[in-house]
């Protein structure tokens, strides 16, 4: 299997939570393919189901419906959500997760060394001590942790350092896919840049595939090859990053983009305010979920649910009038030079 092949195929994921007779549809019918070596950004406001989706994919939740077709390194394809415990054990280590909060995702009573060791111990109980130690040291050095401090506890580390610990823990089993759930949101901007650069370098080095879940559109635009926009549990738009940011086809994406604060006071963006708030997912609106806040809402939107279809090549949209609307995105200006494009 090589770069560019399909590594994950997320198909019609549904996740419903039920309690006291109320059914909350956290994720409704989300499908998208993931190619090896790619970064897929998932954006949306809080409560839109992006974290739930990420957790469904790593099978931290058991989705109500749907499948995640995973192509193993040998080229075998299996449904990650259906495989039994024994097979699961074999493949779980290939799909890892980095969590949002570097403070609560590390056990305060374990040393950093033990935290990074734990996944190896669980998956390779027979591995000799020295080998484990060496593996941990290598990975810790790679993510930029000072290896002399590994015997310390998490509280002795700063937020950025802790996030590096989380990254080391996810990487130590040589995964192929990493789900980053708001991996840099809790960090200060200068530290955020360090961690983003690190994630980028690691991807180049190990050929990782990222699923990058975030509410921060600038970070997502920077890091992702393709972006999916979620609203109220549904994927409303999915396209290559540049296409999505320059030519959004869903009115929600347009509003979302216009709301991003740009760090330049001379840039004047005409904002397209979204009226009201996200409806209750336990009682979503009829027809198109977005119709209550959409400025283009027509009668059809209130009655019929729009299908999620490929409007243009690689550009999926769920909107009845996507073709008719002329929506605004960011102006990219001229195409960047090929040389600069690859970065340094």
């Amino acid at each position: 299997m090589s770069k560019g092949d399909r590594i994950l195929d997320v198909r019609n994921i549904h996740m419903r939570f039920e309690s006291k007779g109320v059914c909350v549809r956290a994720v409704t019918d989300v499908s998208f393919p993931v190619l090896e070596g790619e970064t897929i950004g998932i954006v949306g406001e809080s409560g839109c189901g992006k974290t739930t989706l990420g957790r469904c994919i790593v099978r931290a939740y058991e989705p109500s419906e749907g499948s995640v077709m995973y192509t193993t390194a040998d080229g075998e394809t299996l449904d990650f959500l259906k495989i039994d415990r024994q097979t699961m054990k074999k493949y779980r280590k290939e799909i890892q997760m980095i969590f949002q909060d570097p403070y609560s995702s590390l056990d305060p009573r374990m040393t950093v060394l033990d935290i990074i060791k734990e996944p190896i111990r669980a998956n390779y109980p027979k591995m000799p001590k020295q080998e484990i130690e060496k593996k941990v040291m290598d990975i810790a050095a790679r993510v930029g942790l000072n290896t002399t401090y590994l015997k310390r506890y998490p509280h002795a580390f700063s937020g950025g350092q802790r996030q590096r610990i989380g990254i080391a823990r996810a990487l130590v089993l040589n995964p192929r896919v990493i789900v980053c759930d708001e991996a840099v949101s809790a960090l200060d901007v200068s530290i955020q840049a360090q961690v983003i650069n690190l994630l980028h370098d690691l991807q180049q080095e190990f050929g990782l595939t990222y699923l990058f879940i975030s509410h921060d559109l600038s970070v997502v635009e920077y890091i992702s090859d393709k972006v999916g926009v979620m609203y109220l549990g549904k994927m409303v738009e999915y396209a290559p990053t540049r296409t999505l940011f320059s030519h959004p086809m869903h009115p929600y994406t347009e509003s979302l983009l216009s709301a991003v604060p740009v760090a330049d006071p001379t840039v004047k963006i005409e904002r397209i305010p979204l009226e009201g708030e996200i409806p209750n997912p336990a009682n979503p609106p009829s027809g198109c979920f977005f119709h209550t806040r959409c400025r283009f809402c027509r009668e059809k939107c209130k009655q019929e649910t729009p299908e999620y279809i490929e409007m243009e090549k690689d550009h999926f949209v769920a909107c009845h009038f996507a073709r008719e609307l002329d929506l605004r995105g960011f102006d990219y200006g001229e195409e960047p030079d090929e040389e600069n494009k690859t970065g340094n």
Partner: protein
Amino acid sequence: MSGAKDDVILRMKDLKINIRVDEGVLTVVRGVDLEIHKGETVGLVGESGCGKSLTSKAILGINDKKCRAEGQILFDAEGTGMTDLLSLKPRGREIRAIRGKQISMIFQEPMVAFSPMYTIGNQINEATLLHITKDKKKAKEISLDVMKKVGIANAEKRYDQYPHEFSGGMLQRALIAMALVCNPKLLIADEPTTALDVTIQAQILELMKTLQKDFGMSILFITHDLGIVARMCDTVAVMYLGRIVECASAVEIYGNPMHPYTRGLLGSVHKIGTKGQKRLFSIEGTVPLALNLPKGCGFYERCSKRIDGVCNVQDPQLTDLGDGHRVACFACAGCPGKEEPVHE
């Protein structure tokens, strides 16, 4: 931003804040000079731990008892003219007449800022009853009026609801209503939109801008988000390790940043529309602990332009480069250290 002396409503002079801890004395704010003019929005930017929140809380005298503030905070109070807020007793009558009436504050987490035990109306009334009228009926009228102004639909019904019945965005509106009910001269906004989603954030920022015009107040806007600063502020003060390292108009700061820290901070934020052009700039290292600080510039350890023998020996002072752009750095053109480098 005329700079005329008479329209200054708040002037901090050499503000220092110390905190006594077991290990010694933390000097968290190390001499801040800042002026706020009438009708102006000043952005105080910096990463977590730089002392921006403590500085703002010192204005109202609501810091923890362990914090000791030195220096002067002059405020153009109604009736008494320029008053040093630090000389007032923190629980005295004078400061209480200012706090909440002439200077009010909105906090980061609207969910925490309200008491869950009282209705929203009740809590907004508190300030009105204390400062404006003793008549409960009249107070309710005033509160309802402000609630409508900040865009809370159905104000009469909302008035009798409890905080848990509000969404995050609505609660932030209610908090703004509470802050504005006495028509303050100065509003301190401490990360008012950090906990909110981008689209809600855009709503709240627009609202604050409109209200500022209507009420003619000044805003001290504290945030770490450079995008928000670019959108909201006239003047920007960049803080690092308890000091203002650069202060200028927003257009200057973004167009012509001087201090290496400001440059680093701006470089580490990705601007949408420049995808794939360059790697994010990251400032190496982390913010040092403000305990037993070494002599010299606080940014020395992380600075790419440091001059050995100068920056680690002397402490740079904020110097006006002309046209009101002030910067504290020996390595910047126009600053004292650059012109006459000190030789060993």
